[in-house]
């Protein structure tokens, strides 16, 4: 067991990695950047960050030989955290541009309905539907930072994966978890102390895996 678990942050050209990299270091992880499938070798946990649309992200994952290694990683139930687009890519597909995505969580990424403003930008409450170690030590009414217009809608037949919801005109799923797989629609790396705590909790889960 490593005391500083090695976490691969997947770089597929979808946004800056500085903040997630710095936040993970701040909570005691050793960070490597995975530019291709080889980058997942020998690491203890994987984070897929990113903002933007699904189709270009999926083609970049394919071009960087990351699609199958990521699917295999998740299928093996190894520690995984998807952030924002990294969560949306777990679903079957996205309404944003019709992309077929990884299909490891049943449901589709859909536009937020009844939103008073779009994009949904800012701090909002993340209401947990059940306890989970990812939110250990974080107050039930804690706020996290969001920036998105679409969110994954979990298939109602498989909604036991839902971990938290958030309201912006209507309620949407803001966190999921199943086994060692987790995903959050908000940005823990931009959510102050509560965000750092969530990342520290993920690092603990990686360490314990």
């Amino acid at each position: 067991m490593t005391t500083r678990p090695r976490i691969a942050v997947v770089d597929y050209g979808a946004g800056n990695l500085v903040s997630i990299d710095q936040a993970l270091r701040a909570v005691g992880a050793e960070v490597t950047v995975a530019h291709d499938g080889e980058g997942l070798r020998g690491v203890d946990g994987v984070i897929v960050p990113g903002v933007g649309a699904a189709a270009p992200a999926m083609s970049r994952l394919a071009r960087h030989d990351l699609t199958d290694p990521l699917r295999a990683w998740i299928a093996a139930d190894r520690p995984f955290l998807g952030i924002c687009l990294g969560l949306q890519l777990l679903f079957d597909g996205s309404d944003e541009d019709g992309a077929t995505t990884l299909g490891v969580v049943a449901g589709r990424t859909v536009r937020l309905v009844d939103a008073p403003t779009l994009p949904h930008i800012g701090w909002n409450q993340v209401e947990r539907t059940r306890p989970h170690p990812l939110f250990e030590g974080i107050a039930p009414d804690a706020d996290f930072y969001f920036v998105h217009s679409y969110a994954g809608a979990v298939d109602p037949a498989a909604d036991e994966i839902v971990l938290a919801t958030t309201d912006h005109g209507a309620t949407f799923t803001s966190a999921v978890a199943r086994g060692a797989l987790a995903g959050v629609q908000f940005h823990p790396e931009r959510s102050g102390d509560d965000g750092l705590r969530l990342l520290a909790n993920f690092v603990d889960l990686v360490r314990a895996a």
Partner: protein
Amino acid sequence: MLRRRVIPCLDVADGRVVKGTNFVDLVDAGDPPELAERYAAEGADELVFLDITAAPERRGTLLDIVERTARRAFVPLTVGGGVRSVTDMRDVLRAGADKVSLNTAAVADPLLIARCAGRFGRQAVVVAIDARATVPGAWEVVVKGGRESTGLDAVAWAERAVDIGAGELLVTSIDRDGTGAGFDLELLRAITSRVGVPVIASGGAAGPADFVAAVRDGGADAVLAASIFHRGIHSIPAIKAAMAAAGLPVRLVPVPAA
């Protein structure tokens, strides 16, 4: 429920905060990352750096301070001033910023908004609009810090910027900026009633009541101010407490130990 944001703005030139601050307990209150960390700890919901460095060859200092800020302040950072191309934007984001704010360059070349949004997503593109009242109920866009008129109608430009790809608007009343006369609520209302993206109010804040009014009466999603924070006239927790007392949803953080 989405929280209304309070955003301190730091004017930066040659890597230094231009208007000094009164925080006697900071080692170097002129160092943007140190001040940014201080504001983040106090509950700033985001931070804005407005780079007013005159010489383009000294822009490297900005990237350096963005990177140093990203290492210690884990809240969103927007950088404005001097972003004139997709390449400029890429450099700023790579250094650790989350968004850029486009102003004069977007007025000169509106499709810059589309190119930036196309490459990095509209959520990363803030269009800053400096507006000056012309006749009652009408405002024109001014650029270069208010020194140059454009003849563009501010509300029409706001709508167009959103159509092209702006994910947020930062609306500054040049008439009110630095006066402490309160935000131009009519200007804010004119724009927030016409666009669906979040609007950040700027220019004229004097006290907590102005922040409340910008949100409640102006329809703003967020409120930006500079000197009242830098001069220590009002603290971020005090502003947020007043907003909460007025029934507005805000993110309250534990006050750091003195």
